């Protein structure tokens, strides 16, 4: 037992003692700050028709617990879904495989470590919710139970299951990060979309939010004396200028069946992990190249021959970036599995044939999101593949290599969006066509900037995922490709944002090279 706890402890320390985790924690706090809008804010997070609760302990506790449950389940998966991969990469896995630790014990330690990482974030958000309560206080007393109860019953079980799912996805799709990323996206969408109306159905709601929302709707329904279904918003809805009414919310007495269901979710996920442990590879994994190809290589064909340097053909100086560009394209093309290209091609066809609004608002962001691992790899692959000694000592690495990486990424995005750009141009909707061009440039610059700043892929992947999720929910604020009606200075804003990102990434990379 002691050794098991030691594994968890050091795994947790290893993951939290990183710059990326610090950034994630800061980003989580920034997001948590918005969970309960300040009294004069022009957005809402949870709103039932025109009603929101008085800012008492229960409202703060339940709202932040629900928002944390939904949003951290969404992004948390992407934060923790590389724990086994790290062990593969660092070869620690091979050492673990040679010890007595059982598959289940190892996987369970990874789950608990994942959960602890998420719990750290939850802890910070929890503290933030109390601070916000004290800041926005409307004269209500601080009732600690109203904060603790929803977090324990709503947030934590859901996050535990997400921690398990992250490990399960890694076991099955460890080599294919795209399958993990996109696969979980669809699992999440399915789980969040399922509607629950009865007590039994609340039990299958992983995020535990439906029971609270149902209770809120019933309370508001009683106030307005209407049996009609009230319209509930959850998420960030901007532009709520209508005056809201207030009602008193004093928390929920959760039915026993709901409490048991939360425990069942945890138990079932552990059961799933136990079953998965039987098929865990235990680091006996093949190289990414097929066995057939490996077999053809005679690794024993050794011996350096006598090389006559004088007889080597003389090369010439060539500082053009065309060869670099060509290889950057090749690296983008070969990144990921072939089936992803088939899906992408299907997306390109849909851009050409679907009604233009659907193509622009829904197909384009999803098609671009499918390229997430390609984009996140653009400026991080030197370090992740340990090629940085060559890349950073190349001739003019910024004006040649960096530029070719950005150019390759933008070209890929624009080639994928080409049918839409042509259709918009034919329809003389030049603003939208330019917005798509700028959108491609924006998302590439975002990938490049976050990759350079964090020296990793995670933060961009999580952010891109959240943006795409918001795009799919038609939230105009996150529209970076001009799919909705915007104010006249939208294109200028987008352009300025690109310039800012470009400048930050350029300066940061230059700083890195100088150091």
């Amino acid at each position, binding site marked *: 037992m002691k050794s098991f706890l030691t594994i968890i402890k050091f795994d947790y320390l290893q993951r939290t003692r990183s710059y990326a985790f610090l950034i994630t924690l800061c980003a989580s706090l920034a997001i948590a700050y918005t969970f309960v809008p300040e009294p004069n804010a022009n957005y809402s997070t949870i709103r039932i028709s025109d009603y929101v609760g008085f800012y008492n302990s229960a409202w703060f506790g339940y709202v932040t617990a629900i928002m944390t449950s939904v949003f951290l389940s969404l992004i948390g998966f992407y934060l923790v879904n590389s724990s086994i991969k790290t062990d593969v990469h660092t070869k620690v896995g091979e050492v673990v495989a040679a010890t007595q630790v059982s598959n289940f014990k190892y996987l369970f330690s990874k789950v608990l470590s994942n959960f602890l990482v998420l719990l750290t974030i939850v802890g910070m958000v929890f503290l933030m919710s109390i601070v916000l309560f004290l800041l926005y206080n409307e004269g209500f007393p601080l009732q600690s139970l109203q904060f603790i109860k929803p977090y324990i019953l709503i947030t934590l079980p859901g996050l535990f299951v997400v921690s398990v799912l992250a490990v399960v996805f890694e076991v099955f799709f460890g080599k294919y990060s795209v399958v993990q990323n996109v696969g979980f996206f669809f699992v999440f969408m399915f789980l969040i979309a399922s509607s629950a109306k009865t007590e039994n159905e609340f039990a299958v709601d992983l995020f535990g939010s439906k029971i609270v929302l149902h209770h809120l709707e019933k309370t508001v329904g009683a106030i307005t004396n209407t049996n009609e279904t009230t319209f509930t918003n959850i998420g960030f809805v901007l532009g709520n200028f209508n005056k809201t009414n207030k009602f008193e919310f004093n928390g929920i007495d959760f039915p026993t069946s709901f409490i048991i269901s939360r425990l069942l979710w945890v138990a079932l996920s552990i059961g799933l992990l136990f079953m998965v442990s039987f098929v865990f590879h235990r680091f006996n994994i093949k190289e990414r190249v097929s066995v057939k190809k490996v077999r053809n290589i005679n690794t024993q064909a050794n011996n350096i021959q006598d090389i006559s340097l004088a007889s080597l*053909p003389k090369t010439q100086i060539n500082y053009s970036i065309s060869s670099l560009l060509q290889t950057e394209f090749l690296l983008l093309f070969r990144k990921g599995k072939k089936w992803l290209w088939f899906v992408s091609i299907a997306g390109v066809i849909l851009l050409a044939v679907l009604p233009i609004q659907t193509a622009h608002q829904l197909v384009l962001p999803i098609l671009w999101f499918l390229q997430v691992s390609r984009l996140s790899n653009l400026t991080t692959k030197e370090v992740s593949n340990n090629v940085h000694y060559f890349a950073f000592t190349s001739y003019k690495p910024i004006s040649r290599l960096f530029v070719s990486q950005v150019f390759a990424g933008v070209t890929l995005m624009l080639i994928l969006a080409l049918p839409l750009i042509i259709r918009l141009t034919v329809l003389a909707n030049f603003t939208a066509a330019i917005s798509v061009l700028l959108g491609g440039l924006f998302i590439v610059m975002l990938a490049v900037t976050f990759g350079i700043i964090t020296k990793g892929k995670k933060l961009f992947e999580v952010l891109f995922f959240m943006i795409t999720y918001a795009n799919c929910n038609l939230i105009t604020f996150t529209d970076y490709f001009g799919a909705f009606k915007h104010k006249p200075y939208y294109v200028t804003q987008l352009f300025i944002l690109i310039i800012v990102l470009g400048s930050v990434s350029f300066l940061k990379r230059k700083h890195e090279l100088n150091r």
Partner: protein
Amino acid sequence: MTLDIKNVSKKYNKNKYGLKDFSIHIEKGILGLLGPNGAGKSTLLKMIATVNKPTNGVICLNKNNIVSDPNYMRKQLGFLPQDFGVYPNLNAYEFLEYMAAMKGVGGDNLKPRITQLLEGLNLIDSAKKPIGSYSGGMKQRVGIAQVLLNNPKIVIFDEPTVGLDPQERVRFRNLISDLANDCIVILSSHIVSDIDTIADKVAIMKNGELLSHGNQEDIIQNVTDKIFETTIAKEDLTTFKTEQTVVSTSRKNNQLVVRYIANFPVANAIKKEANLEDAYLYLTR
């Protein structure tokens, strides 16, 4: 062709130096860099290769300060780091073409040169296979090939023989000797035998400082008349080690033959001819 390193320091924090007030003048030929782990060899090589910048001091290649103008070095550099990676989805041809593009090398002769290098490094049969499927030794040979893509005037090899078998090491040494006719080669290694057979000059480092620099004979001079060999019982070795600097031991007739460094020999000791390894151990003890 000269490389001047003047008063270079690399400071990591208030009390920790990677390199401390290091100065050396290097000319055409092979410089062997020896030192224990943490001596600062890799730090020095990375600064010469323009990967890192010194905290203080200047590094001049042909009187051009490469700290302020790294591209002057990069144009004529061949660098094989100790621990490097590859893009696993590219084959050897593609990877080397990419490396050539990064170095600013091209022209009609690039492909024939790559082919010839791959032939010379015995990689031609697997040149169209993804590098991800290569063995450690094969990857090391790809690394050697990329060094030779341009006509480097300064070549840096950091622990280059890792992954090479004994036969390959010999051929690799021949290659380095060939290279050194026309440029500066800096070769770092833990293995003294890799250095002593080919290095024109040797530099010995410890704790970020230069302990000794010169021809092998000059360095060996430090331990002339100080190397002895004696035979002792196995159980006496621990005590012997506390009193003398032991270079090596070998078994003979159930006893131990001990080679050691001392100003005055113990009884029955035989004086031996000193070599570079003795000098290295003497200086870094």
